[in-house]
Every structure is written in C-alpha cells, then in structure tokens.
C-alpha cells in the first residue's frame, strides 16, 4: 500500500467534495489512482481529455506513482 495525496480541480473537486485527500492505495500508476478515486466519488469522466500531474510535473496516465506522491487530477481544461 502507498500513501498518496490526491488533489482535485474544478468538476472533480465538486464530485469529491474536497480539495484534496490522503489515501492509502494499492496502486502502481496514475491511471490506477484515477480509477480508484473515480469509483470512490462516483465520477464517470473518461480519461480521454483529462490530464494528470505528479508532484507538480505533468505526467502520463501510465506514469508510476510512489509512496508519498501527490497526484493532481485535472478534468478537461478550457483556457482562453
């Protein structure tokens, strides 16, 4: 099990009801974290247009996560 801090933004934050939470998860990738939290909060957003960052660096869904990491889950962006 790894201790992962997950941060939520925009609609993900509204689904989760919190800005961030620290969870004990049996995960290896950013995708695993997304799937666990999606199930936890009942979100149905596909990963297609979502983005992920680990410890303030943009990452891939296949990127590995380590104990103590902070994973940032970004719903589809809409700048400009």
């Amino acid at each position, binding site marked *: 099990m790894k201790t992962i801090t997950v941060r939520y*933004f*925009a*609609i993900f934050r509204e689904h989760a009801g919190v800005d961030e939470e620290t969870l004990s998860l049996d995960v290896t990738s950013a995708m695993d974290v997304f799937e666990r939290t999606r199930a936890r909060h009942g979100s149905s957003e596909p990963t*297609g*247009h979502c*983005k992920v*960052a680990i410890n*303030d660096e*943009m990452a891939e869904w296949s990127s590995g996560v380590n104990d103590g990491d902070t994973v*940032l889950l*970004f*719903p*589809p*962006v*809409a*700048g*400009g």
Partner: protein
Amino acid sequence: MFEISENDIAIDALREQMKDPGAGGYCVFEGRVRNENEGRMVERLEYEVYEPLAVKEGERVLEEAQQRFPYLLAFCVHRSGLLEIGDCAVWVGVAAAHRDEAFQACRYIIDEIKVRLPVWKKEHYAGGDSGWVNCERCASVLRQSKDQNGKGS
C-alpha cells in the same frame, strides 16, 4: 513571459512592453468573455487556475513558439477569478522582425494555451445555474487543424 492575473489585464501597459527596434510586425490577440455559448446566455464566468503548473506550461508554449516562429518579444497573460461580459480573459502579444512570424507565433500560443494549461472555465447562465465548460471540442478542432497542416503537437 507568461503570467496569471487575478486582476484586469493592463492592456496599455503590456502594449508598451512590446516595443523592439528590430520588430517590423506586432500581433496581438485578446480573448474576451462572450455573452453566449452553445445557445445559452452567459452572464459572467470564472476561471479556476492551478497557477504553479499553468505558468510552467505557459512558459513552455512560448518557448515552443520561439523555436517554430522566431520572434523578438512575446508575452501572454491569462486571467483567473470572476470575469464579466467583455472582460479580457487572455492576452497574447508577439513582436517579430516580420509579420508572418508575429501572426503564426501568436496563433500558436493562443491555440496551445487553450488546450494545455490547467485552467477551467465555469459559466454562470442567465437562469442562475452554472456549468463547467468542457473544451473537448476545441481540442479536437485543434488536432484536426494540425493534421491538415501536417504538423504534430
């Protein structure tokens, strides 16, 4: 240089910064808050920005534009917080030796900013409800346009 601003974008001051004796062309794009989106009347909107990564990614976009369309000066500011109709939401200015680089770099910067930065837009509608804007469509339009031009991301 790329910045996030909680306050009105100081367009006149930005314009003053874009002077370079070698610049024969200066191109600017101002994105403004529109009163309608997909048939719904919009009264105002708010931008949520994750600033640490937005700035990092914004700087990266400016560097990419420099490599593709060499310019002399480029500056981009994106708003955060609550905006009213007509407010400037994003400002991009590029000064280059010739107009072609200025136009192309400016276009590249705004297109990439829209789909890459951790920025989210919540529209507040005339009926009192609100909703997050999903930029999937603009992302697919951008990809389509790049495919047609034979350019990768």
